[in-house]
């Protein structure tokens, strides 16, 4: 991981430094998949474990960025982004299941002695349709939920609670065996994607590369949005929604747009997460996971574009280390992190660095 480098460097602040550091990080990220292809005895070889872990964290970073768009910019704290992430993941997962089972039904369905595929999984043997589902499932759900929520001006903590209830309901639904989502175990035992073996180094490297590209694309999109008038309307919406309405803007449309966009980004991140990690199960929808994403954003600094990425990297890096070194204490640490960040770091690490830079 590259945080230490990034931390010390951004302390000196200055846009030029930030750009240089960002460029370096990007270069390292692009080099990682190539290094993983080196023969195992090479000193520069990156292990499959490291590559997968980094890829996983990058997927989380995209989620953090998506959450930051709605929370940091529009002031809507979603505690249900895990649902969108998982929906994208399930759509991809079903394609991988179909790849693994060939012309047969996926293994978990034959296990439940089902004879035919449920209608909503029709067409998932085609990669292009699975990709459409990755975008459509979270996008449509977000559209419908957002339409009703924003229409009745649910905001603040009410919105957070409703989104949390939504992802909880989703989790309950996906846990059931009879709903056709693989129940408790979810989807796993994938073999190939687009005909390539899923554990082959080349496939892994390509998936990692795709994740980096998606991250860069999301970052660019976020940057463009933040700089546009749209971004300024969102900020205004966060601070004084009523004033904005009396200026003649309809907050619903703006919220809905950024909300759906954020959900779709999450879905895409989920779709890249599943083939790299090799499993998707309803646990991804648990409220705990979604609220954890909020602490990534808060730690890094909401309302900034780099902050969420930094936060996702640091927290997940710590998590990987803790769960190996002191599994008992991880929850204590995470809990303390929630408290410390809200009490002492309202603007996150980025805010802290900026302050230092100004001094």
């Amino acid at each position: 991981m590259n945080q230490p480098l990034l931390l010390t460097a951004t302390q000196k602040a200055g846009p030029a430094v930030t750009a240089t550091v960002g460029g370096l990080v990007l270069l390292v990220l692009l080099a990682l998949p190539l290094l993983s292809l080196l023969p195992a005895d090479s000193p520069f070889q990156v292990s499959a474990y490291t590559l997968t872990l980094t890829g996983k964290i990058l997927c989380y970073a995209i989620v953090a960025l998506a959450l930051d768009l709605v929370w940091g910019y529009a002031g809507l704290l979603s505690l249900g982004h895990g649902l969108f992430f998982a929906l994208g993941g399930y759509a991809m997962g079903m394609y991988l299941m179909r790849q693994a089972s060939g012309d047969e039904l996926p293994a978990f369905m034959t296990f439940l002695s089902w004879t035919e595929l449920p209608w909503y999984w029709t067409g998932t043997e085609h990669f292009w349709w699975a990709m459409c589902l990755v975008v459509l499932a979270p996008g449509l759900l977000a559209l419908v939920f957002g339409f009703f929520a924003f229409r009745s001006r649910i905001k603040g903590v009410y919105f957070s609670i409703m989104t949390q209830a939504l992802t909880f309901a989703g989790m309950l639904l996906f846990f059931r065996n009879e709903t056709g989502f693989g129940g408790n175990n979810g989807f796993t035992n994938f073999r190939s994607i687009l005909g390539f073996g899923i554990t082959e180094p080349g496939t892994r490297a390509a998936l990692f590369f795709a994740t980096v590209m998606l991250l860069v694309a999301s970052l660019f999109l976020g940057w463009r949005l933040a700089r546009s008038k749209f971004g300024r309307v969102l900020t205004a919406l966060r601070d004084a929604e009523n004033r904005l309405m009396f200026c003649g803007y309809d907050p619903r449309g703006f919220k809905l747009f950024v909300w759906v966009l954020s959900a779709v980004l999450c879905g895409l991140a989920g779709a890249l997460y599943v083939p790299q990690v090799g499993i998707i199960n309803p646990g991804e929808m648990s409220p705990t996971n979604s609220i954890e994403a909020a602490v990534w954003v808060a730690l890094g600094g909401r309302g900034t574009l780099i902050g969420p990425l930094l936060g996702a990297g640091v927290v997940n890096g710590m998590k990987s280390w803790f769960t190996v070194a002191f599994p008992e204490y991880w929850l204590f640490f995470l809990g303390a992190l929630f408290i410390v960040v809200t009490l002492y770091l309202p603007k996150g690490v980025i805010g802290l660095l900026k302050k230092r830079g100004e001094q």
Partner: protein
Amino acid sequence: MPTALYRFIFACLLLLPPGAYADDAGDFAAADNSRQAQLLESWAAQPTAERAALINDLQQGQISVDGQSKTLRLNNRLRGLIETAQASQQLLAPDPKLRLAAALQLQKSAKPAQLAFLGRQLAGETDSTAHSALSLALANLQLVDPDPAVRLAAVRLLGETGEPLARTRLETLLQDGVETDAKVRIAAETGLAQVKRKLLIGDLLGQAFSGLSLGSILLLAALGLAITFGLLGVINMAHGEMLMLGAYSTYCVQLLFQRFAPGAIEFYPLLALPVAFFVTACVGMLVERTIIRHLYGRPLETLLATWGISLILIQLVRVLFGAQNVEVANPAWLSGGLQVLPNLVLPYNRLVIIVFALAVVFLTWLLLNKTRLGLNVRAVTQNRNMAACCGVPTGRVDMLAFGLGSGIAGLGGVALSQVGNVGPDLGQGYIIDSFLVVVLGGVGQLAGTVYAAFGLGIANKILEPQIGAVLGKILILGLIILFIQKRPQGLFALKGRVID
């Protein structure tokens, strides 16, 4: 003359049983399983007072042959038969209660061989409840009588009861090829319809009751939340953990009673109430003073910080008590239930919790509306600065109000420990439902919370049998979202000029 002789010998044989206990026991001990079954069936058909001791022994899995006690190996079928034989014996008992219990047992398990015996007993039965129970047991047997008239009478008798068992019996009878007599079939169909109607009433009442019960539990879980959210504007995600701590306090009190006062263990829940209240209120006040105090007016931040607190509390309990569920036993006065209809039993623990929940609401209402503290709390809620100017110690009021909310959750935890599993994750299961109650009920209104809790509880339980628990929950969530379209402020909201 020879006939008289035979008669005499036969009479002697009939008189044998008094002395035959030893033989019966011996026979039984020597017999193989199928012979033992035959023996038991015949004993059930002709119970005698003398055999009571033997059957009692058998029920303990013992038998004494020639003064020596032996342990028997019994299979389930034999155990069932022993139960039946035992019930037959009990029908001879002088106590009508015992006879009633025996008749109820025989409704389920009587064998055709007992027909004659049951007929005789019925004729001699004086107690009315025992009589009707016994007549049902007999009717069950008569359904297989070769005489259609007997079967017809039996079917009619079954139709007049509201027993779940009568339904299954009649349904079996109506299966293809079981009953051939057209008259009996028709009677059975009407009888079945009657029974179903009676059962439906019981089912509906049962659903309503479980709805009320769920509602009272939701109420206990959400009431404290309604106070902290409604009065202080604090989203306390650690509220579920306060329930959990309350339940664990109950567990600890139970352990202490087991250790130091095993005689009074029946009353441990009563002591657990103040203990749980004290423990959770203290934890709540500590949390308020150290963390939440700095976050007033920033609800989203409180949400995240209290989530952190909840993670720490869960892990703390895991470390202290283990990740497994701990066992909290119902005392005797909370076990069992009230039999209202044949298919409707109201468990005592749930009845007590409904009453308890309402009592807690009433006390909270008293506290908020009739005491100085309540006045202070309401003043701070409406205008913090003004209240401070009037000399209300806002800091202390905040602390006490938060402590009160947490303490109520602790009381809820005691109640939850009596109906469900107690484990570190107990609170997580309730927090979302509690929030939905508060959202639906509207902020700052006790009445809204009460209505919303019972409304959600009943709606849940009505939907559950129709579409399943999970879909029911999802549907409820959808309904709440739609409901908020209509009334964004919840069921009960204060209207007023929009303040910016």
